[in-house]
């Protein structure tokens, strides 16, 4: 709180002037980019002090700003986080070659930020050339994180391993990449010691185990190691004894057969890892050896089993050993009975994500139901983040769940059949989601599903005052639904809608809103080209991009992506993206 505010108005014009270097010293302690944005708005002096002291820049939409503008404003950046494609590209709704290429950014950074140390990319297109460029041009480069990116292959990783002499972090997650060979791991120099984070769990090619073992032995600061599923249990044991200081471990698969002696050694290796607080892996259904994990489970705060299709009994046994668990990611093979075990054994749970093991399976008797969710809400009162894929739900259950856990900040419920009503009453799920927004006043992110009328959106608009992100699919009855959202949610930043009957009226009702949001996505809705053109005409500071929707027969459907920008229309748009 600015103390000058409490003085009377005559004095408030006399703002205390800090000498610049004092101001910069103070501001350099502020990390949060939102706080920094606020700081930069205070006065010119503060704006300048802030821009000189900023070390990390977060760009939530790579097209909202240009690399030149970023470099002009922030001369001393050492770390960049860039997000590219709209989130629905994760689900194949964005055609390939859409854009979000990192290279243009790297070219500017090579010039303006030669001392760049960290690059974290999400949903960007990264080529091998870009990776080679990165490795060559930035002598101090230390940390690379690629999540849900595409366009590169393991050849690009070879360049990173070979040339980044100070690499501390290499985190490759869930990317659509060309996995040619595991040779990249062998490219780390012989005397390499700086690695702290290594995550190659999502790569499928074999790496040379000797090289990996040597790397792990030499990197004494290695804290996070996530190997891929080709690493056997025996190999894992050898790694663990060389890195007992690990805090996060991703194992290989658990398929190998072990002798009694090997089992004991593995168990001892896990006991030796006293600092382990996060565990993940792709564990196959043969689960004979899961008990070696039990000693390590006592201190676990994060357990990611979302690649382990284990039966519910095994999962139940496992979570029973995790009393300090705060975050659990799991497949719906856990079933309600397994979730019951979670409820009974993990009172500190804050986050639960249940993914579908078989998203296309129509068998209602598999997976989780409202009972599992309800059980967890009863046993885990600190629950505030849920992502839940299920095949049936009721309004009553949802209402009770949020009554038990009113602190939800992220409520993402995915009833997998589009437009499915409450299976007991056959009514729309309006009242359930109504209860969510009425009860959970801190709600920041909401994903809705099931049969929903405009009433759901009336509720959201009226009650969800802190909502920032809303995902809608196969929902709503008329323009009124979307209008309620745009009129109502003051903090809305991201709105993504698919297969819902919202048209031009709804689109244009957001004229006043879109510039305060990061982006709007609409596909398979009822907007027409004319509606989009009208929006573009009235709001020149928005990019209104349309793509013909190839999934629709009628040749008149468009995918619309609207976002605020200071960089003008894209200069790299492919032929199928039209900026209006």
């Amino acid at each position, binding site marked *: 709180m600015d103390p000058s505010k409490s003085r009377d108005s005559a004095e408030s014009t006399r703002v205390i002037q800090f000498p610049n270097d004092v101001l910069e010293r103070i501001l350099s302690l502020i990390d949060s980019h939102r706080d920094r944005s606020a700081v930069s708005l205070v006065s010119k002096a503060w704006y300048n002090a802030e821009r000189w002291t900023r070390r990390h820049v977060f760009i939530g939409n790579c097209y909202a700003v240009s690399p030149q503008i970023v470099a002009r404003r922030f001369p001393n950046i050492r770390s960049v986080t860039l997000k590219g494609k709209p989130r629905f590209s994760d689900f*194949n709704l964005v055609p390939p070659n859409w854009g979000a290429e990192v290279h243009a950014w790297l070219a500017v950074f090579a010039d303006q930020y030669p001392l760049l140390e960290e690059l974290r990319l999400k949903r960007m297109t990264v080529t091998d050339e870009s990776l080679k460029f990165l490795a060559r041009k930035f002598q101090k480069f230390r940390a690379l994180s690629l999540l849900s990116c595409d366009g590169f292959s393991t050849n690009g990783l070879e360049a990173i391993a070979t040339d980044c002499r100070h690499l501390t972090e290499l985190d490759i997650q869930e990317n659509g990449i060309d996995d040619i060979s595991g040779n990249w791991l062998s490219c780390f120099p012989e005397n390499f010691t700086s690695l702290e984070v290594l995550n190659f769990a999502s790569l499928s090619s074999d790496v040379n185990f000797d090289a990996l073992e040597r790397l792990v032995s030499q990197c004494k600061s290695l804290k996070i190691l996530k190997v891929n599923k080709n690493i056997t249990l025996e190999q894992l044991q050898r790694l663990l004894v060389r890195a007992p200081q690990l805090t996060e471990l991703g194992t290989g698969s658990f398929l190998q057969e072990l002798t009694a002696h090997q089992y004991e050694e593995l168990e001892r290796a896990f006991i030796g890892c006293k600092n382990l607080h996060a565990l993940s892996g792709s564990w196959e259904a043969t689960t004979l050896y899961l008990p070696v994990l039990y000693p390590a489970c006592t201190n676990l705060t994060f357990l990611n089993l979302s690649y382990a299709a284990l039966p519910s009994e095994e999962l139940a046994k496992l979570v029973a050993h995790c009393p300090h668990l705060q975050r659990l990611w799991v497949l719906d093979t856990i079933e309600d009975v397994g979730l019951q075990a979670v409820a009974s054994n993990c009172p500190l749970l804050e986050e639960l994500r249940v993914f579908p093991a078989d998203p296309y399976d129509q068998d209602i008797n598999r997976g989780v139901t409202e009972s599992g969710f309800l059980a967890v809400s009863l046993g885990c009162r600190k629950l505030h983040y849920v992502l839940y894929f299920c095949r049936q739900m009721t309004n009553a259950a949802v209402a009770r769940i949020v009554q038990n856990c009113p602190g939800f900040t992220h409520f993402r419920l995915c009833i997998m*059949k589009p437009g499915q009503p409450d299976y007991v009453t056959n009514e729309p799920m309006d009242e359930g989601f109504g209860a969510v927004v009425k009860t959970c006043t801190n709600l920041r992110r909401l994903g809705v599903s099931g049969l929903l*009328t405009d009433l759901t959106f009336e509720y959201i608009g009226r009650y969800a005052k802190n909502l920032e992100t809303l995902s809608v699919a196969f*929902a709503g009855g008329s323009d009124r639904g979307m209008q309620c959202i745009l009129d109502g949610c003051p903090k809305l930043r991201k709105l993504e809608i698919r*297969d819902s009957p919202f048209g031009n009226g709804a689109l244009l009702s957001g004229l006043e809103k879109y510039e305060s949001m990061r982006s709007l996505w609409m596909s398979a809705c009822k907007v027409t080209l004319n509606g989009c053109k009208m929006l573009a005409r009235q709001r020149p500071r928005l990019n209104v991009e349309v793509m013909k929707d190839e999934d629709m027969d009628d040749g008149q459907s468009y995918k619309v992506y609207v976002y605020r920008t200071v960089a003008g229309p894209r200069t790299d748009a492919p032929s199928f993206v039209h900026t209006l």
Partner: protein
Amino acid sequence: MAAQGEDLNLEATELRLGLPGTVESEKQQMPPSGRSMKRNLIDVNDERESNKEESDGLSAQNCDKQDVHRPSKAQVVGWPPVRSYRKNCFQKKVESESTGAFIKVSMDGAPYLRKIDLKLYKGYSDLLKDLQDMFKFKVGEYCEREGYNGSEFVPTYEDKDGDWMLVGDVPWNMFITSCKRLRIMKGSSEV
């Protein structure tokens, strides 16, 4: 739009995936996608048992129009919203359970790779004969001490440890379980 709707009798073909017998008197209560949509089949080899509830809701007319190999439920692009990477993980699991040991074969200088099923071959000579046919080259004579003599083409494979080995050194059965991919190397380039 409305005219289109009447012609196509959209109500009858509407993909209402709710329970049969659901009373939907008001327009608002209908699931919103009243348009005809192409359904992209995600799993081509996926044969699901027809669920009676589903087929009551889905009209045969709609499915035939799409001319699609029909699972019990037409699959919508990008739904449920599970990341491609995650989906592929589980599809891959199913593939590896099926019989056959498909591996990629590359040859230096060839524009694209091939895939072969190692389990179909009886031994090394069978395999090499097929590879030579496929890529139009000839290997030299194999001997334990010197490898392949007499040709610039050398068959190599990547084993479980990620190392590149000469084809023919180990017993055939050991080879087919440890071979991850094949590469026909050309010239005197070292592995």
